[in-house]
């Protein structure tokens, strides 16, 4: 499935000054392959382009025709949306008040007996006026229910509007009939229900308004993320620093960020150093130090120094925009648990209509007199009390809040299904390198043989290893740099897969690698052999170096364990989850790391391609398995697991193989994700039980099931209030998740 979100792109061209500019730009863009239509708006200096073309290509084409273009961001859209929502809320509120006030007037005149009996002419006229007054309420405050019901009906569809329109419509029609033909109804049944119809409309409008308010809060996480982006950037142009709107920042622009300011777009630091607070994006609480060449992320806050950076990603390509996009998309997905509610709500309204007809039947055939009154009260109550909204909202509204909450902690959930599965995990498999450990090996000890020295050992090893791309080689070279050891060139270099390397150094053969390499070449390691065994048991990786068949020494390398790995693993275990470590390292090293961090089990000496098989094996034992890795080397394992976590990817969110991306390098993200998922799942269940329970209890009560035992019937007005409250309750319950702390 290819989803393309950018069929339309809006660009801002600051230097459009005449009609001919419009033509030039149009011609330039229309000549690009993929462009379908171009619309240049001279007034607001924007260009709308439709078609499948990259932003960069468009901007470049405009630049080549002599203009400066940048992305026009639709900040206005969000503001528009908020204004629209506010307007809608106000309108609902106004309708509630109008309907409420008129209802109260009707209730008052009825209760105070201000209007004469219907059999009199004055009574008929007065009630006729009230009928018109309530018709006004139905049309003004409830008109949308009637148009919606009619439209749905024509489409062979039925929804909440259908129920409200039927309920209030029947009440009004019956009452008006009684007013016009009072004689045709037995005296005992000569009631009118105008107040019922208008009060129901008032309650439902109030419910919609409250629900809308509460719903606004469910998308707070997204609003917060959008709010992270600053409005302006201070760019360097022709030696001057000028403030420009962020939409006008171009790729490769050099931007100045002063202490305390937000970084406007993504880029690479070119001058200065600083500490940057990325917590709002990654959840990482400690500011990250930045030097020349480091990446900085738009939306993060510069804490200390002033620096310059070059923009590398702008507009929709920035990490922040991608995060927002991903969270939005995830909020719109539904986990499996919501499927049943969806199925029920698809047949809900017609079913309620059938129940209403059956209710009518039962009261008609078996009910007491006056039958008409009982039939009307119960049927209207059934139609009004049934709430498909609560059922429909139960799952998605909790997912919205849950996914947003996770994003606050730097946990990006791709789909609602992952949210559900993460709450049901029984085993978490952690890749060792880069997940439990830092993933950056460092030299921890040098042990030269008696005839050599530390310096010689490191010099020869580094001179060889600088030609290798192995991560352990990097550690060796890094160690020689720290000691300012000058490297020599070598005459030849050969990698021996899985064992090490062989090189010619000053006409002497250097072997560098594991014990097998030494054994295969008949090198007697002597005392170094025992020493290596001891070090391996401590979790160190040992590299032997020999020069002309004589051992030169050994180099210990280890990948430090992340400081919080142990705590995070404990947190997972406290949740009853079994934690397993997976590594390609030898057993001894793996055992040491496993015992240091306290995992329940470990699987050592696993080749990268076999990681996925290990996950399958666990799944065959009926475990619900999560795999946590870097998302690159272990993509098949991540994809095969019930939930794949990509960890420590910074702000790179585009990891397709992962169901959940952790922007922070810490394993606490896994524990946070599990906690939030469990809480969200619980919340969904509460909502579903509430919504199902409400409807299965309330509908029979409204139909009058309690009447034979208690003699009580539910007033349709109460039914209206209950219905209005039920969906507000669901949204409010979901909002409780906002205060959840994992």
């Amino acid at each position: 499935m290819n989803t393309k979100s950018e069929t339309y792109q809006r660009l801002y061209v600051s230097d459009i000054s005449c009609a001919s500019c419009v033509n030039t730009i149009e011609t330039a863009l229309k000549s690009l392959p993929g462009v379908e239509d171009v619309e240049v708006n001279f007034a607001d200096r924007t260009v709308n382009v439709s078609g499948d073309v990259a932003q960069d290509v468009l901007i470049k084409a405009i630049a080549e025709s002599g203009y400066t273009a940048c992305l026009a961001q639709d900040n206005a859209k969000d503001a528009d949306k908020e204004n629209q929502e506010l307007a809608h809320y106000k309108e609902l509120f106004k309708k509630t008040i109008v309907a409420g006030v008129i209802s109260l007037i009707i209730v008052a005149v009825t209760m105070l007996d201000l209007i004469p009996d219907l059999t009199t002419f004055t009574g008929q006229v007065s009630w006729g006026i009230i009928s018109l007054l309530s018709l006004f309420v139905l049309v003004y405050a409830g008109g949308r229910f009637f148009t919606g019901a009619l439209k749905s009906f024509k489409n062979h569809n039925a929804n909440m509007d259908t129920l409200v329109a039927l309920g209030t419509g029947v009440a009004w029609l019956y009452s008006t009939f009684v007013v016009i033909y009072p004689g045709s109804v037995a005296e005992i049944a000569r009631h009118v229900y105008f107040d019922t119809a208008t009060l129901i409309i008032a309650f439902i409008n109030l419910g919609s308004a409250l629900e809308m308010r509460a719903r606004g809060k469910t998308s707070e996480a997204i609003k917060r993320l959008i709010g992270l982006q600053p409005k302006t950037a201070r760019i360097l142009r022709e030696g001057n620093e000028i403030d420009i709107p962020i939409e006008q920042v171009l790729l490769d622009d050099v931007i100045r960020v002063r202490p305390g300011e937000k970084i406007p777009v993504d880029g690479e630091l070119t001058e200065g150093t600083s500490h940057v607070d990325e917590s709002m994006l990654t959840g990482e609480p400690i500011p990250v130090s930045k030097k020349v060449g480091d990446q900085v992320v738009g939306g993060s806050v510069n804490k200390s120094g002033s620096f310059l950076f070059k923009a590398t990603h702008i507009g929709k390509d920035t990490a922040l925009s991608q995060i927002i996009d991903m969270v939005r998309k995830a909020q719109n997905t539904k986990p499996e648990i919501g499927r049943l509610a969806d199925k029920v709500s698809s047949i809900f309204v017609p079913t309620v209509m059938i129940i209403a007809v059956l209710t009518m039947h039962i009261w008609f055939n078996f009910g007491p007199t006056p039958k008409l009154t009982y039939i009307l009260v119960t049927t209207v109550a059934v139609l009004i009390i049934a709430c498909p909204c609560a059922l429909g909202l139960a799952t998605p509204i909790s997912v919205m809040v849950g996914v947003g909450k996770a994003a606050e902690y730097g946990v990006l959930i791709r789909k609602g299904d992952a949210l559900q599965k993460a709450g049901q995990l029984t085993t978490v498999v952690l890749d060792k390198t880069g997940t439990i450990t830092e993933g950056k090996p460092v030299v921890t000890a040098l042990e030269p043989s008696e005839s050599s020295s530390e310096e010689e050992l490191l010099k020869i090893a580094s001179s060889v290893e600088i030609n290798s791309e192995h991560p352990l080689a990097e550690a060796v070279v890094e160690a020689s740099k720290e000691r300012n050891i000058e490297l020599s060139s070598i005459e030849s270099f050969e990698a021996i897969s899985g064992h090490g390397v062989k090189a010619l150094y000053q006409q002497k053969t250097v072997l560098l690698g594991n014990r097998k390499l030494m054994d295969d070449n008949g090198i007697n390691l002597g005392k170094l052999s025992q020493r290596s065994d001891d070090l391996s048991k401590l979790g160190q990786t040992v590299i032997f170096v020999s020069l002309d068949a004589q051992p030169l020494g050994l180099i210990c390398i280890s990948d430090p364990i992340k400081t919080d790995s142990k705590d995070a693993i404990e947190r997972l275990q406290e949740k009853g989850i079994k934690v397993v470590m997976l590594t390609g390292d030898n057993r001894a090293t793996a055992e040491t790391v496993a015992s240091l961090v306290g995992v329940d089990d470990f699987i050592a000496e696993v080749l990268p391609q076999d990681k996925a098989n290990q996950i399958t094996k666990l799944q065959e034992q009926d475990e619900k398995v999560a795999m946590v890795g870097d998302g690159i080397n272990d993509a098949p394992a991540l994809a095969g697991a019930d939930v794949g976590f990509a960890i420590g990817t910074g702000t790179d969110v585009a990891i397709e193989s992962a169901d959940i991306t952790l922007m922070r390098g810490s394993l606490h993200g896994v524990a946070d994700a599990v906690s939030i998922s469990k809480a969200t799942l619980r919340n969904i269940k509460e909502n579903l039980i509430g919504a199902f329970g409400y409807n299965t209890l309330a509908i029979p009560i409204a139909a009058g099931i309690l009447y034979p035992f208690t003699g009580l019937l539910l007033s349709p007005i109460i039914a209206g209030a209950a219905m209005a409250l039920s969906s507000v309750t669901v949204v409010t319950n979901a909002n409780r998740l906002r205060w959840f702390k994992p």
Partner: protein
Amino acid sequence: MGILINLIGVFLIVFIIWWFWLYKKQSEATIEGSSIDIIVDSGVYEPSVIHAKAGEEITLRFIRKDSSPCSEKVLFGDLDVSADLPLGTPYDLTFTPEKKGEFEFTCQMAMYRGKLIVE
């Protein structure tokens, strides 16, 4: 009189079942070219049944006229496609349905309902 009213009730139930569940013909449309306008208003997508060809990119231009929050989202659950629809401004949802079959699209509460039939 009693029998008549009972018969009317039975007729109503049969009618509800037939009209809402058994009657198949809805406002159908086939995408001509690659794009189609879908009006989102008063609880209904118009057209609500859309025919498309598998493997061909389509653009569904949603025009939302209903200001109630229910109509804001459109979700194609089985296709993993969703969108937030702005009020009053057309929104183009472009994607390529690869699989053949019938895929429902709904609002967040599944009150608005439509069907994409990929042939």
